């Protein structure tokens, strides 16, 4: 009985609150759910890091706070007042750190989640929306869904034009890069090993969100097995004998060049081990968001140096200015490109 009464109360409160949104239109989110567009959107709660970055790029002033506070060296590349906004926790992913009462106290007009669209996250979105009566939009966080996510977010926040602009830039950037290598058949593209962890033995399997951009441009040596992140042995890497190694771990990238066990690997012998830039957000992998767009250009350049002769600095400056709203200085860009943190 108690449960029924609670369900009834929730239903009633939703019905009572509904008139506030009565005139508002609905937008179909990444999960195919109809989300009411709030009359005014001034405060948006990001459910996780990808949502925070998406929102920051499109409409920084709407961002209530960050799932984790930004470190000083990250804030250098963000608008000072927005980059310093407080830590508010996350609702999505493995275990929430945000308290729903705190979420309510922050009075957001919209909760935004960008990431996997599957029954787990759809039910989470439905439940939080029921409990808080705040519209909860779930957008597809896959790399090829970036443009669509911008359009949907633009519609949700009443900034359709800007959303369309970002969607267009995204599409143009991706097609300009993939177009240049379109004539290279899949089988003759470089074979890339993606290395994570201090020993470089964690990798992203085929179709995992961690290697989306690598698989878009090249062959992932671990791609035959589908899945997420996994550990492999050095023997397996020696057998794969990748042409290029891309890593996000500074310790590994420093040690691999002198580690005798890795010496026979083609990528190590030919000096093609590359450390991914990570300021203010990682370029290849985490968080899986629009930061991977500049990463795609970087990957293209290290994979096909002769096809992409352009200077990375100019592209980095343009991307940071447009998406992060701060123009970095030359020394700052050098620091980013060196993969420092």
């Amino acid at each position, binding site marked *: 009985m108690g449960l029924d009464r609670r369900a009834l109360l929730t239903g009633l409160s939703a019905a009572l609150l509904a008139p506030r949104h009565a005139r508002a239109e609905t937008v179909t989110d990444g999960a195919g759910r109809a989300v009411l567009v709030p009359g005014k959107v001034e405060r948006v709660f990001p459910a996780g*890091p990808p949502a925070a970055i998406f929102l920051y790029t499109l409409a920084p002033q709407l961002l209530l706070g960050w799932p*984790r506070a930004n470190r000083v060296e990250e804030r250098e590349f963000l608008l000072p007042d927005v980059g310093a906004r407080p830590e508010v926790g996350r609702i999505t*992913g*493995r*275990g929430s*750190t945000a308290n729903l009462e705190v979420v309510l106290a922050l009075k957001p007009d919209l909760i935004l989640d960008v990431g996997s669209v599957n029954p787990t996250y759809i039910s989470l979105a439905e439940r939080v929306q029921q409990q808080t009566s705040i519209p909860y939009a779930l957008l597809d966080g896959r790399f090829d869904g970036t443009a669509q996510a911008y359009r949907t977010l633009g519609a949700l926040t009443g900034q359709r034009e800007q959303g369309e602009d970002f969607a267009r830039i995204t599409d143009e950037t991706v097609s300009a890069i993939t177009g240049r290598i379109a004539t290279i058949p899949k089988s003759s593209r470089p074979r890339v090993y993606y290395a*994570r*962890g*201090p*020993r470089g*033995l*964690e990798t992203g*399997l085929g179709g995992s969100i961690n290697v989306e951009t690598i698989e878009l441009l090249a062959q992932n040596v*671990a791609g*035959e*097995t589908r*899945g997420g*992140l*996994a*550990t*492999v*042995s*050095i*023997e*397996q890497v*020696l*057998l794969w004998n990748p042409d290029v190694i891309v890593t*996000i771990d500074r*310790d590994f990238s420093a040690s691999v060049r002198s*580690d*005798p*066990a890795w*010496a*026979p690997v083609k990528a190590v012998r030919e000096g093609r081990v590359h450390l991914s830039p990570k300021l203010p957000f*990682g370029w290849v*992998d*985490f*968080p*899986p968001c629009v930061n991977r767009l500049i990463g795609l250009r970087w990957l293209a350049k290290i994979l096909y140096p002769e096809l992409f002769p352009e200077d990375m600095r100019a592209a980095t400056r343009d991307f940071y200015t447009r998406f992060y709203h701060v123009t970095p200085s030359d020394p700052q860009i050098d620091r980013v490109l060196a993969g420092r943190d």
Partner: protein
Amino acid sequence: MTRPFFPGLAIALAVLLLGLIVAFTIGRYPVSLSELLDVLAARLTGRPSSAPPAVENVVLLVRGPRVVAAVLVGGALAVAGTAFQGLFRNPLVSPDILGASSGAALGAVLGIFFSLGVVGIEGLAFVGGLAAVAAVYVIGSLLQSRDPILVLVLTGVVVGALLGAGVGLVKYLADPYNQLPAMTFWLLGSLASTTVADLLPLTGPVALGTVVLVALRWRLNVMSLPEDEARALGVATGPLRIAIVTAATLVTSASVATSGIIGWVGLVVPHLARALVGPDFPKLIPTAALLGGGYLLFIDTLARTAAPVEIPLGILTAVIGTPFFIWLLAGMQKTWS
């Protein structure tokens, strides 16, 4: 009940030798038997090998250290488990009963949380294991009781639970994209990243602890008697218990720091050894050491060859260990005591 020593010891040795041959000859990277022998012979005689450099690399720098580490870790956990099962007079005790694994786990996840290098993570894990057991021992000794063994075990359980909560807290606070997967992989146990450089910090403590336990093998028989009977035989149970716990903790912490958490070996192998040579510690300890090394070697070979992706050791030891342990339980009355 006494059983003949040498047939049992010979079986354990055979298991280890067979394990060594299997582990060296199979792997993801194809190495033929002739290439393997050539590389090993070249290494021993100092002449240059005729095998391709990549093969030489796999045998000496990748597969070799891993095989050695599997033998050392398996043997160490089995010896520590054997000593603890005797000391605590309980067949369900494993080497982590006093919190060594939980302490090492907390040390390792903190190392990953603060983005330390491999040496830092392994060092913190080792220190964490030692510190946890030291804390358990001090707390357990301060609590006055007529049954110090029971108090010690219970203190180990509750401190282990507290450290487990600490691991949970660090995982909760960790970066979900980068650190959390690394922590999860570490807690599941693996020898995938073993290098030659890992062998020294592993071998030192393991050798030291094992030598102490082997030296105390006769006393362990006495320590497995009830407390008052042991005292009646003129044994200073207090200092002896500290020595045994210290030695077992040293080998357990060094193993866990290298390999991550690997359960079951320290629980199952002592029972298997007891089934072979009976409960007499002078026979039991060497047999358990050989068997443990062979057992983990077989499991690690499976972990690295079954799929392109590594299968975590903690999962394999549990999947293989559980039915095996139930089978052992069925016949345990015959061999325990």
